[in-house]
């Protein structure tokens, strides 16, 4: 039987990563050494780059050991035009560029679920990882996961609906444990994946990192952003979200990244931001919206701070109680007006 787990993680989440890398870099990273000299990052790490209307999303999926299959769901801001193996050492190189350090001020901004079957838009196999891109509402994606033998965590209905209201695109990454073992992968080894997403509305899913965790559990992750200009980000201030780097990317970094597999798209110049997440799962109720246009107007909807127009948001009981209270106010108002008119006539 397949191992459950569609619970934990997501994007950034799934992950810590392991990639083939040279010994000197391995030493420099002071990371954990995996099979075949692979280096495992100590934290979940993701690169989200936005260039000419395309979001490049590079993350890694960690092999957690055992046979069978286990997987991760990642909400995406749009339909990917491509999903391929990620650069071999891109995430490690970024960690070398920006060691975790002080806090910076964030750039200030001026500022239903479907029930039909999930539509499979794309499938691709990368090493022992089966990736499926789905279009559907929360229920249909949950049904897809159930049909494929996975059990979702109890917070999944709310989290999937939270995402599906903004974008019905999800990426399911399923590790074939048996295949990973045959490939010599050990616990902690990962597979880097590069997702290319044309979108005018870039955002990085963060809330999904808390999926399957208890409210007091910790979520730790590093998110690197590469944008043409200094981006405006939302939210600005949240417990556990810290901007630790915001500066023009060095030429050496960009040259190094560009020389990695599949990373030829890295521009000649860019702004590098790094955000650290060290949050309780309960506090991580938002995503990261990015406005790289220079207009300083990241979307509060994309950040998950407000619901999209046309979504309910209130539970049925609250609606009922609210209606009843409104009725009470109307009746009371009518009674008082009547009383007032009687006493003055």
């Amino acid at each position: 039987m397949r191992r459950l787990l569609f619970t934990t993680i997501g994007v950034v989440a799934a992950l810590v990563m392991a990639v083939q890398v040279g010994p000197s870099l391995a030493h420099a990273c002071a990371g954990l050494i995996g099979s075949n000299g692979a280096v495992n990052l100590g934290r979940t790490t993701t690169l989200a780059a936005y260039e000419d209307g395309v979001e490049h999303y590079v993350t890694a999926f960690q092999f957690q050991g055992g046979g069978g299959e286990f997987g991760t769901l990642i909400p995406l801001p749009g339909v990917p035009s491509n999903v391929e193996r990620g650069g071999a050492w891109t995430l490690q190189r970024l960690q070398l560029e920006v060691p975790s350090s002080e806090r910076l001020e964030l750039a200030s901004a001026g500022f239903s679920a479907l029930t039909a079957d999930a539509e499979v838009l794309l499938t691709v196999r990368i090493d022992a990882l089966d990736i499926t891109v789905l279009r559907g509402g929360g229920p249909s994606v949950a049904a897809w996961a159930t049909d494929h033998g996975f059990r979702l965590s109890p917070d999944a209905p709310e989290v999937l609906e939270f995402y599906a209201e903004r974008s019905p695109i999800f990426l399911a990454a399923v590790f074939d444990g048996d295949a990973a073992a045959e490939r010599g992968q050990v616990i902690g080894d990962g597979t880097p994946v590069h997702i290319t997403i044309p979108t005018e509305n870039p955002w990085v899913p963060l809330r999904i990192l808390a999926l399957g965790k208890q409210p007091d559990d910790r979520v730790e992750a590093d998110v690197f952003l590469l944008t043409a200009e200094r981006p405006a980000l939302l939210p600005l201030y949240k417990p556990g979200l810290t901007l630790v780097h915001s500066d023009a990317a060095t030429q050496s970094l960009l040259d190094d990244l560009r020389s990695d597999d599949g990373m030829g798209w890295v521009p000649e110049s860019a702004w590098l931001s790094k955000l650290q997440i060290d949050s309780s799962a309960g506090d991580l109720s938002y995503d990261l919206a990015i406005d790289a246009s220079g207009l300083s107007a990241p979307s509060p909807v994309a950040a998950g701070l407000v619901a999209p127009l046309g979504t309910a948001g209130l539970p049925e009981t609250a609606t009922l109680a609210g209606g009843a209270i409104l009725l009470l106010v109307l009746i009371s108002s009518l009674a008082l007006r009547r009383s007032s008119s009687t006493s003055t006539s």
Partner: protein
Amino acid sequence: MLRLSLLPFAFAVVLLAIGCGGEPATEPTIAIHYSEFTPAVLEVPVGRPVTFTLRNDDPIAHEWIVGTPDVHDIHRVGTEPFHDERPTEVTIPPLSTLETTVTFAKPGDYAYICHLPGHEAYGMAGTLRVVEV
């Protein structure tokens, strides 16, 4: 003299609307949404058949298991993947509604809990108050 005398009526409307007060229910509905039981506290009569409608609005399966603490202790470590043989232990598939009829012989408070992995810790529990009528 319509005026303020309407207020008690209005309060009654409110109470009825939000389902407070009244006789113990013999045909209650328990809804499940975002892995939460609604209502979380429910009063039913002792010694009379009570038909529960269990409505799962979530896209994942849930359980409704009602009983004494020892029953719940068993289910916390149990391995039964599906419950459909005892009226006090029901698996509700995603986006579905089931009915189950139970007669409680003794008054008291009985917890109802979903014992799927992680669900109780997530807060998926309620209290059934079995009362003399």
